[in-house]
């Protein structure tokens, strides 16, 4: 699965990296920085947990499209 963060929407609530630090990290300003944009199957639940708890709806977890 692929995780996308819309940096125009992120304002640094920090819920994602608090709840799912294995997928999300903080940049210098406390805004979301992805640990990796592609998440292994065992981390998909964490990625989704971070996404649904974003008050700005800035995170999307999507199927990776095969090239």
């Amino acid at each position: 699965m692929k995780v996308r963060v819309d940096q125009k929407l992120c304002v640094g609530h920090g819920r994602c990296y608090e709840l799912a630090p294995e997928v999300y990290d903080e940049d210098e300003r406390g805004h979301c920085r992805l640990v990796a944009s592609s998440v292994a199957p065992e981390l998909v639940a964490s990625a989704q947990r971070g996404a649904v708890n974003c008050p700005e709806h800035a995170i999307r977890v999507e199927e990776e499209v095969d090239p």
Partner: protein
Amino acid sequence: MCSSRVVSKWEKALAKLEDQSEERTAEPVGTPDPVDAASVNIFSAEFAACPQPTYANLREKCPVSRSAIGGGPILAKHEDVVWALRQPEIFSSKMDMQLAMGTERPMIPQQIDPPEQTRYRRILDPRFSRKRMLEIEDDVRKSARDLMDQFASDGSCDFGEAFAIPLPCTAFLHLMGLPQEDLGLFLHLKDSIIRPQEQEQEGMAVQQIRADAGRGIYEYFERAIDARAGQSKDDMLGFLMTAEIEGERLTREEILDISFLLLLAGLDTVTATLGCNITYLAENPEARRRLVENEGLIPGAIEELLRWETPVMVVPRVLTQDVTVSGVDLREGELVSLLLGSSNIDPSAFDDPELVDFERDRNIHVAFGAGPHRCLGSHLARMELRVAMEEWHRRIPDYEIQPGETPRFSPGIREARYLPLVWSV
């Protein structure tokens, strides 16, 4: 644990989220009930004591009502509140000076709008990041323990006076790099600004008390800056004195206007949240026992109580243009109240919003606001709250409100002005 079940739970929530984040149409549909101007005073102590039933009433019957004081519009729905918070070009934070709390200029960055506000947030956000706040956690923990040493063996206290008021203030002094001996002075200045009504100065107008205290705050920080001339220190004041925006140092006025905000915004809000939390836990011993038995639940409990209690019930904005919200026409120049508290228990955004669940799967509360003005100190507040809740419950796990007494809450920011607690020693 069955991981596939967990995934499907999040998938369901994600689908719901996609639904809600559809591009919002400019003209909301539906005709609201007639506006009842005098029915609700959201700035009354009665409302502050138990606002949740009124929130539900407003959302369902009158999502855009008119304030009993001043007549400005009050937005109650999650969708409207969050939408407004994300449109600073329409819902401006530039307040008329009549709303000023003893300041001579706007507080930075709270009372200015993007893009100017963004320039300040770029340099301030890193100083208030979660990582930075963890660096002062030990100091805050020590302050909490020191405070508790003074009353834990008494078996009773007024929660505000003994703990919830001094703790955030000592944290603020640590953060700024100011002497702890100034605690009393700070508490006095802050109270004069926030609650001038409670000052017993015969014949003195509220505005005068505020203006005097405001001057006192400016002068205090002026002296603190002067005393540091030439020395560099790695604390907030030292940072502000050397910080640059686009190669330019902050002016003295900018440093004062930021410091003023940190003082006003950083103390009362955490005090109020602690009071709301402890009142809830005193009244709900089963929930409290769960926290005491499992400290790992505390961060989730803090988020859930921020949602349910929403100590900062409302934030103001000024309209820069005419706009229609939930079918109601609002006019340029109107002072709008965004009801964060109502937004946080709106069933359109939360499953079982009336249920207080420390392990809630999805909690998108906006107790710290949303959009570009998201509370600068939210990570500081969360750290202080977590440390305070941990230390309090380790030492005093079992407590109740003194029988026969009722906590009193102040309007606007729901601070427990009287919260007598008792416990066995």
